[in-house]
């Protein structure tokens, strides 16, 4: 059922069976919500590629598969290229008339975690977007290498504790700021780039639809709260995601053709970031007196980014 006909969350949650409920993701993992939202956003046939990561290892353990659609995993870094190859083959075969069902609409999608997207697969993503393949890349951004036990990635925010950027007696965790991949992908001139969150499921579904309907390469960064490494109770995934979007730690916006920025969600009450940080074990050391300055810095940067996004939107340039 297409998303346009779906009225409420209950209908939405059962609308599409191309991604089976039987998978090995952690209870409370947001990855499966985001995948389902993508599946629900279209009735078209899907060719999906996944980078190595939590989603991949949890959904295709032989002899089982959670995917009731075409799916491929090659390596940690190359889902964007796998889907590029498949898309090129689709074009060649369509032209030659060798497809079994040449009129069936097909969409090409790649999934990667933040480790595979921001770090090891960055070049492969950049290349595929530059070449202009007609596909949508969705980053499931849980801000760490969760599949290997919670190491830092370039998507890990400043101040977060990870196993390779530890908070300790003389350290407040990761020292470096999160890479702004959304800006980098927009700078590629991709026709549609967005940052979305699964708690705002209607906005997310619309964003996915827009990306799928847009010809050419589209990139979407999605916040995927990680119960295991962010350290919160599995039942609180959506609550944590609400805090991420309503503190503006994770603003929801789109950039069209590399420049036209639209804010897609404006919190009625902007919540201080402290509340978001306090809800997660990975930030608990920041509440020690000597680390308080990091919380202040995070809040300051959120405010500046929000100001920047609003001015960009207003400027229409």
């Amino acid at each position, binding site marked *: 059922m297409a998303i346009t006909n779906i009225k409420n969350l209950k209908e939405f949650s059962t609308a599409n069976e191309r991604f089976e409920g039987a998978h090995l993701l952690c209870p409370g993992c947001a990855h499966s919500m985001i995948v389902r939202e993508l599946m629900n956003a279209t009735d078209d046939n899907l060719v999906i590629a996944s980078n190595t990561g939590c989603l991949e290892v949890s959904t295709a353990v032989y002899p089982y598969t959670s995917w009731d*659609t075409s799916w491929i995993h090659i390596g940690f870094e190359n889902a964007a290229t*796998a889907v590029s190859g498949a898309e090129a083959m689709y074009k060649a075969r369509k032209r030659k008339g060798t497809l079994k069902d040449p009129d069936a609409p097909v969409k090409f999608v790649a999934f990667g975690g933040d480790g595979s997207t921001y770090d090891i697969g960055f070049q492969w993503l950049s290349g595929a977007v530059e070449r202009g393949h007609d596909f949508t890349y969705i980053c499931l951004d849980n801000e760490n290498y969760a599949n290997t036990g919670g190491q830092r990635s370039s998507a890990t925010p400043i101040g977060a504790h990870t196993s390779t950027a530890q908070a300790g007696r003389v350290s407040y965790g990761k020292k470096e700021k999160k890479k702004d991949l959304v800006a980098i992908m927009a700078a590629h001139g991709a026709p549609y780039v967005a940052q979305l969150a699964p708690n705002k499921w209607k906005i997310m579904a619309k964003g996915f639809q827009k990306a799928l309907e847009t010809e050419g390469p589209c990139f979407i960064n999605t916040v995927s709260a990680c119960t295991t490494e962010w350290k919160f109770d599995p039942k609180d995934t959506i609550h944590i995601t609400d805090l991420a979007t309503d503190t503006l730690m994770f603003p929801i916006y789109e950039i069209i053709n590399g420049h036209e920025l639209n804010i897609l969600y404006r919190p009625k009450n902007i919540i201080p970031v402290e509340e978001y940080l306090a809800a997660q074990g990975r930030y608990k050391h920041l509440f020690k007196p000597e680390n308080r300055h990091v919380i202040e810095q995070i809040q300051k940067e959120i405010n500046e980014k929000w100001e920047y996004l609003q001015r960009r939107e207003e400027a229409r340039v």
Partner: protein
Amino acid sequence: MAEKMELKEVEVWDGNYAASQALRQAQVDVVSAYPITPSTPIVENYGAYVANGYVDGEFVMVESEHAAMSGCVGAAAAGGRVATATSSQGFALMVEVLYQASGMRLPIVMTVVNRALASPLNVRGDHGDMYLGRDSGWVQIDAFNAQEAYDLTLCAFKIGEDMRVRLPVMMHQDGFLTSHTAQNVHPLSDDEAYKFVGDYKPYEEMLDFTKPVTYGAQTEEDWHYEHKARQHKALMESKDVIDEVFAEFKKLTGREYKRVESYMMDDAEVAIVALGTTVETARVAAEQLREEGIKAGVVAPRCFRPFPFDEIRDALENTKAIAVLDRSAPMGAMGALFNEVSAALYTTPNRPLVTNFIYGLGGRDFSVEEAKRIFKEQKAHADAGHITTPIQQFSGVRGPKLGFFETKRGN
């Protein structure tokens, strides 16, 4: 529909051009590639065929060789004919994905124009890259000249795509010596060539949505081993298909290929075993030595993988002394070809004397004179009844003479 190309009965092509013509005639659907010397002209030419309507495929120029092979895997899983080309460092960068291509049983054809591996950086031909691929699960076929590069590339599609095989195939040729040396090549017409290769037969394809497929699943200790064992079995059994394809090609063209090419071996007392262009050099040397009364012959594995163990054994078992030539830095061991040939000969009653020459690294010339010297050394071993030198020597290297590993036989 792609335009056809009128070809003369005899064309003057180098190995790269010959390979690219085979890709065109096979009407490859997708080439996903990244340029690297000396293989670059193969994919440039495919791009030119696309640009001029001589092929209907898609030319995807990616940002690295790792991506090139990744694109090939995605394209092949989508159910069409796929090819690429690379060399040396590019090959090394691809290695991760080579294993994935063969593990997913995707019949990609890749020409590897053999070139040395850095460091030091070197663009000339040796077999370091070919050897790097030897455990990757691909069929590996070696062409010794431009005609063979053309013929065997056509055969490669037919071998890899056969439903009994469904494995990727590497087509090797020597960097510059073959790839950039123009020679007479007898091509097939476009129609004959395509008829020989045949239409691509999709199998478990991602673009048939009535039957969804999952490629690249995870297996741990419970299933990984069975997958790899079956893959090895498929590679071993591909030899029958290779023989069939070669037989069919001979019927069509009169040109005969075998998984092991033996030259003047019927009564040979001494032999050289080698790969690539060196095979032709050794053949000339053998011919000249025959005039001097030395019964010399040459054995060449046309097919490097699956390794033709039985055929190598049968070709060499009645010789007395054999030099196995490895054009790859052995780095702390015997040359790989030496080890495999020796293993085959160990199973024979007579167990000929086998020595190992490392030679030609980074494109160092290997002359007929040097081949003759090596033959004569084997003759001396044969006459003495044992190896009179270190087992491993370096041919044509400057500086003090290098020798490693000693025999216990005959001392």
